[in-house]
C-alpha cells in the first residue's frame, strides 16, 4: 500500500513547528527520520492529516555537552554515534556499541535517537539506555517547554507522556564518570529482526567494589525496563578476577543479578519464537554477560589511565 493523502509543512523553527502541531482540527504527526513513521503510513496503521517535517529546522540538528550531560538534538541521526569517540568517555562507548544493533547503515543514516524515544517501541535500544541512565526528554508545546524524566516518560508500547501537540526537541543523557565501564549485548534471530532481548549496563567501581550499577532491558516488558532489583543486588560487591569461560558460574554475582533481573525486574511479553519463559532465560544469561563486559571495560579504562600516568 501507499500512504494516504495528507497535508505537509516543513517549518524552519521550533516555534513554527509547535504552532503547526497546535492545530487540533487535524491529526498531526512529526516527521524526523521517518524510518518507522513512513512504514506505518505505508501500512496505513498511521494516517495523519498533517505531517510536520522537522528536517529543515537547523536548531534541532545539534549535539552538545552541557555540564555533565550530553544533549542530543531531535535531528541527530543514529549514524552519528557509530564512532566510539563521537561522545566522550564511557557514554560514547556505550552508544557506539548499541548503535550497530539498530537496523543497518541506510536506516541509520536517516533515523534519529529522539525519533526512537517518540516512537517508544519496546524493542528500542535507545529507550532502554534512556531509562537505565535516567535520561531526560525535552519537549516543547503550546504550553511551553518541559523536561520529562525517562522514568516517567514511557507508559507502554508506542505510548509516552508526550502530549500530541508537543514536539521532542532533544534527549539528554548523563555523561558517565571515568570510573565507569559499559556493556551492550543484543540477542536476535537474524540481522533483519528486532531484538528478542538486549541489555545495556554501566558499572561504577571504587577500589574493586561496585559502587553504582545501571541496567537497562530491551524488549523485556511492554516498555523499556530499568532492572533496579538486579542493580541493588550488585551494590557493595567486591569483584575478583573475571571468569574467562563464556558461562558464568551459577554463584557469580553477575549470574545472580541476571536471575534477579529475569525474575523480579522483567515482565516479558510473549512473541512468536520467544515466549515469556524463553525471554526470562535469555535475560538472565545476557544480563550476566553484559555485566562482565562492563566490568572488563572498566578495568581496561583503569589500565589505560595508569599507562597514561606513567
Amino acid at each position, binding site marked *: 500500500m501507499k500512504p494516504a493523502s495528507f*497535508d505537509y509543512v516543513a517549518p524552519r523553527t521550533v516555534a513554527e513547528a509547535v504552532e503547526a502541531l497546535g492545530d487540533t482540527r487535524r491529526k498531526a504527526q512529526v516527521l524526523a527520520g521517518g524510518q518507522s513513521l513512513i512504514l506505518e503510513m505505508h501500512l496505513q496503521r498511521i494516517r495523519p492529516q498533517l505531517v510536520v517535517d522537522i528536517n529543515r529546522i537547523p536548531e534541532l540538528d545539534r549535539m552538545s555537552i552541557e555540564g555533565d550531560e550530553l544533549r542530543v538534538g531531535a535531528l541527530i541521526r543514529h549514524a552519528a554515534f557509530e564512532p566510539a569517540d563521537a561522545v566522550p568517555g564511557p557514554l560514547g562507548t556505550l552508544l557506539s556499541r548499541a548503535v550497530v544493533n539498530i537496523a543497518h*547503515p541506510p536506516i541509520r543514516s536517516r533515523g534519529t535517537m529522539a525519533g526512537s524515544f517518540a516512537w517508544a517501541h519496546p524493542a528500542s535500544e535507545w529507550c532502554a539506555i534512556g531509562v537505565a541512565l535516567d535520561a531526560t526528554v525535552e519537549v516543547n508545546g503550546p504550553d511551553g517547554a518541559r523536561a520529562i524524566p525517562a522514568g516517567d516518560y514511557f507508559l507502554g508500547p508506542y505510548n509516552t507522556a508526550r502530549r500530541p501537540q508537543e514536539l521532542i526537541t532533544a534527549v539528554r543523557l548523563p555523561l558517565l564518570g571515568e570510573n565507569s565501564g559499559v556493556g551492550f549485548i543484543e540477542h536476535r534471530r537474524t540481522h533483519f529482526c528486532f531484538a528478542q532481548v538486549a541489555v545495556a549496563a554501566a558499572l561504577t567501581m571504587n577500589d574493586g567494589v561496585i559502587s553504582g550499577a545501571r541496567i537497562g532491558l530491551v524488549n523485556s516488558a511492554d516498555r523499556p525496563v530499568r532492572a533496579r532489583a538486579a542493580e541493588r543486588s550488585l551494590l557493595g560487591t567486591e569483584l575478583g578476577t573475571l571468569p574467562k569461560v563464556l558461562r558464568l558460574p551459577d554463584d557469580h554475582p553477575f549470574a545472580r543479578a541476571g536471575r534477579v533481573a529475569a525474575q523480579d525486574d522483567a515482565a516479558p511479553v510473549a512473541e512468536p519464537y520467544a515466549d515469556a519463559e524463553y525471554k526470562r532465560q535469555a535475560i538472565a544469561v545476557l544480563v550476566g554477560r553484559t555485566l562482565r563486559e562492563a566490568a572488563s571495560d572498566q578495568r581496561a579504562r583503569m589500565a589505560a589511565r595508569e599507562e597514561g600516568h606513567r
Partner: protein
Amino acid sequence: MKITLTVNGAEHALDVEPRRLLADVLRDDLRLTGTHLGCEHGICGACTVLMDGEAVRACLVLAVQCDGSSVRTVEGLTGPDGEPHPLQRAFSAEHALQCGFCTPGFLMAAAGALEADPDLADNPEAIAAVVGSNICRCTGYEPIRRAITRAAQEQRETTV
C-alpha cells in the same frame, strides 16, 4: 507541491503530492526504473539510492523531503561515455548477481560506502555492514562481498 530535484546531475522541476515516495517519483515521473521496489517496507533495500551522498531507502523518504537535494540512482553510476562504474565491473567479474533484482540497491549502498571511506578495503566489518543492509535471494551474499572488496581495493590503488 512544487519541488526541485537534482537527479544524476540533471535538475528537474516537479509537482508532486506530499504522499508520494521518492522511489515512485523516480520511477513513474522521471522514468528512472533502475531503482527497484521490492518490499516497500525498508527491509529489502532494492530501492536504495544516494541522497546528498548518503545511502537511503527511497521507499522510506517522501519526494517532498528531497526538495533541493541531490539524488543519485543506479543510472548515474556509469561514466560519461557509458563505461561501467568500477563497482559494476567488479559485480560482473565476481558473479555478484543472478536475477539482478536487488543489484541496483546493492550497487548504490556500496557506492555510498566507497565514496564516504577511501580506505573501505581495510575495513571488512564496514563492507559486511553494507552487504548485510540489503536482501539478495540468489547469490548467498559472498560474491557481493567479494565484488565490493575488489572495487574498494581498485579504488585505493588508483587513488594512491
